[in-house]
């Protein structure tokens, strides 16, 4: 599969590395050239030597998305720091480029829920954190 990941922060870069290790073709787009270092960190080969692709560009720039290979992407992952940016580019990937599977990180649980109802595959780390805290707080079952 060809996986395009927009936003190579902690989450994006880690998912990129594991997808590459799992044998997928992986392309990463990030506005900050420095984020490339996160892809190299802890690896024996550089990202490109491991056959990863990296493009510097802004998520909303159609040219950058095309350069990063969105037209042939099977999976699109939106993991930039901005919820609204992620929600917009995921819809661009889905509606304009017809990407089969789009996965969006949305920190705000309320927006994540509503957009999930609209047919986007949203993941809300905040929601998981809340559940984990609640479980940790709950008294042990007898």
């Amino acid at each position, binding site marked *: 599969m060809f996986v395009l990941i927009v936003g190579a922060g902690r989450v994006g870069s880690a998912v990129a590395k594991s997808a590459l290790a799992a044998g997928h073709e992986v392309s990463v787009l990030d506005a900050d050239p420095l984020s490339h270092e996160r892809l190299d960190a802890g690896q024996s080969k550089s990202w490109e030597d491991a056959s990863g692709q990296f493009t510097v560009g802004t998520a909303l720039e159609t040219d950058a998305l095309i350069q990063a290979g969105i037209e042939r992407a099977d999976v699109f992952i939106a993991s930039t720091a901005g919820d*609204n940016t992620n929600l917009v580019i995921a819809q661009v990937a889905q509606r304009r480029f017809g990407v089969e599977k789009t996965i969006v990180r949305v920190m705000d649980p309320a*927006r994540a829920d509503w957009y999930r109802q*609209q047919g986007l595959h949203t993941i809300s780390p905040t929601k998981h954190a809340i559940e984990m805290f609640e479980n940790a707080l709950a008294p042990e079952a007898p």
Partner: protein
Amino acid sequence: MYAVIAGAGKVGRNLARELISKDHEVTLIEASRARYLALEEEFEHAIQYGDATELWVLERAGMQRADLAIAVSGDDEDNMLFCQVAKEKYLCDRVIARVNNPRNHEHFRLLGIQPAVSATDLILRLIEHEVPRYGFVHLLELEEERLEIIELEVTPDASVVGSRISEIPLPDGSLVISVLRDGAGFVPRPDSVIESGDEVLIVLDTALEDDITALFAPNIRPATA
């Protein structure tokens, strides 16, 4: 009519004033605490503090009963999200969005957000239709802010001919916002090259007019001073 306005910057607050003076009900939503506090005295209950893309903020503002949702923040993604949620979740019939970067216009269209208005587009349209060809035109002057937008035709003897935007020693306080060439306009990138005969739109501090003219059209005089 009840209007919810996202963003209480210059555009948002002046729209709110205008609508309130015409007896419409308005709620302004402003995400910057400092700006909210500065405007609270004037707008009282008609301004609320919060992120206009958070659902509970919209519900607090009564988005469910709004007739019109206006997105005029400085962030295009926020404007798109606000309008999409207003329209599709709260079933607001009419939305209007401001496009900050004209390149994002296609995304507004894709998400069905119309009308989407971009200041650059409006200015380009004005130029194409109404402004005759001069070497130097004042398109817009903001006296209080000491800012203006001018259009200059680049003369063959100008030092900038053949230079990339990023190589032009533009004084601080000025910016090339569009280039008109062969009847079409574009927003230049740092690597766009200026050609002789281009018409450039520059926003600048009014005090910099002479410096700018020296760069782009060293031997002309302002047609309207």
